[in-house]
């Protein structure tokens, strides 16, 4: 279709000056953006700005804060008995969860991409963990993992353990249990995203490889993985962001315990802010990690934008 000459747009030299600077549709364009801008500034930019402010105060719940400079940061980094444990837990929890999610998600995607019967039914069933509210996931798994819960019951019946294991209440197993529950909840997201990627790989690539005598494993390594590179990167980084900041699963399964053994950033921030009532100090935990997070987001957004433009 031939490009119709622009509708009612006057020759550029006749345009009002503002329109020349701000663009053809600036008036309606900006008007339609007003609600969005109100939300972005009022509920995001402004609170984040005040957040930076309160980390410089000894603000507590219900009382005005007093300016104390960088004292919160100093205390957190050098005097806090748990902060570095929290950092360690956060990294183990995040990397462990994301690793398992990627592996199980890849298995799910490959299996669903085979010529199987009832594929959409299976796909729907495998998405169930991701559809259930996180709170429900956490509570149900807590019930399953209880000392008197069904997992201990089954393991005992099978003769694998002789006495019930307090999965969530002892140091050796609490963090691992959280990682597994988080994997259960999150792998369908990987699976379905990778499946979408697998479906875009042309079949003749595999046919050619087979003619050349490539094994299934070689095909996976040299065709499947490289083709999925961007998708893997995007879902992995997205998942890192979300897992790093997870609150519900940790809070509802262990409450950060036993002791501080499973405290991660969000639960520790919450404890400092609302249990100890030290809002300023608690927010410092979040703010100190914000640069890492913003860095990750800045790596991720161009990748997502590129996918969008394709």
């Amino acid at each position: 279709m031939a490009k119709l000459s622009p509708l009612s747009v006057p020759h550029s030299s006749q345009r009002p000056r503002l329109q020349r600077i701000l663009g053809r549709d600036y008036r309606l364009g900006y008007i339609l953006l007003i609600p969005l801008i109100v939300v972005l500034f009022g509920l995001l930019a402004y609170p984040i700005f005040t957040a930076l402010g309160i980390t410089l105060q000894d603000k507590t719940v219900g009382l005005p804060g007093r300016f104390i400079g960088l004292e919160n940061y100093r205390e957190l980094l050098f005097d806090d008995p748990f902060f570095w444990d929290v950092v360690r837990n956060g990294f183990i929890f995040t990397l462990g969860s994301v690793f398992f999610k990627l592996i199980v998600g890849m298995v799910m995607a490959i299996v669903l991409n085979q010529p199987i019967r009832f594929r959409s039914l299976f796909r729907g069933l495998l998405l169930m963990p991701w559809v259930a509210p996180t709170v429900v996931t956490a509570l149900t798994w807590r019930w399953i993992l209880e000392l008197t819960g069904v997992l201990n019951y089954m393991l005992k019946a099978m003769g694998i353990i002789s006495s019930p294991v307090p999965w969530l209440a002892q140091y050796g197993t609490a963090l691992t249990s959280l990682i597994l529950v988080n994997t259960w909840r999150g792998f369908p997201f990987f699976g379905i995203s990778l499946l979408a990627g697998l479906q875009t790989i042309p079949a003749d690539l595999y046919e050619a490889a087979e003619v050349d005598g490539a094994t299934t494993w070689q095909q996976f390594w040299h065709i499947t993985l490289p083709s999925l590179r961007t998708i893997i990167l995007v879902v992995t980084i997205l998942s890192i962001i979300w897992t790093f900041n997870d609150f519900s699963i940790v809070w509802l399964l262990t409450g950060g315990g036993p002791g501080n053994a499973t405290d991660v950033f969000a639960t520790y921030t919450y404890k400092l802010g609302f249990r100890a009532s030290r809002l300023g100090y608690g927010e410092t935990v979040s703010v100190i990690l914000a640069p890492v997070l913003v860095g990750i987001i800045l790596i991720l957004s161009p990748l997502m934008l590129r996918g969008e433009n394709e």
Partner: protein
Amino acid sequence: MTSHRAPSRLNRILVYGTLIILVLICLFPFYWMVLTSLRTPRGVYVRELMLIPQNLTLDNYRFIFNERPVAIWLRNSVLVALATSSISVVIGVLAGYSLVRLSYLGNRTMAKTILFTYLLPGSLLFIPLFILMSTLHLVNTVWALLLAYQTFNVPFCTWLILGYFRTIPEELEDAARIDGCSRMGVLFRIILPLSAPGVVTAFIFGFTNSWNEFLFATVLVKSKDMQTLPSGLGSFLLGDVFLWGPLMAAAIVTTVPPIILFIVVQRYVVSGMTLGSVKG
């Protein structure tokens, strides 16, 4: 790896075997949730802890609706989720049209900002939002949730809607404008009807996001009669002795709406998910 030749028998066993194990792992917790919710308080524990259903009862459901404020939480959840996602979708439609079809200074930057803000996690925001809501005297009201949920729902809905609007051919809009249709006329008479499935999907995802939200709900609303289902469930656990039967019944009540909505939009789920629809 869809192979063109007939899959070997071994391959088939491997594929279906893996599939069945995965499905069992995915579904067992749901089975256990339903089963627990249908058992008598005593049947839940110890010796009778069996995998096969027997002596089922609806007592737990009666209990949570009569003795616990689950009906109120349900109402609050529905109200908050409906209102939140309605507002987000309206904002998203206006902004989406503006960003995709109108040309002016800064529209690209704005589109990037939206993605960036969507990726900002709630754990960074909950203390600042708590302080903001305290200042506005909105703590312990549903208004606090309504506002706080816009922080993730507006960027998310706008981002999704923006994508759908891009798929509508610009020629359609040009044609309508030649026939004398205004910009807003084009949006409401052409773009919106054509992208209705996308807009509805954004609404449903927005609804689910709000429905499932736990952290803001816990921080901003403490009083029992203002809570939503997720934060109500959380208080169940951290408060009394854990009554697993009633708790699992309330969990079912919380789970059913998202699952129904999921079945409705399943076709669109993949595109929504790759944009990172529901955090997980």
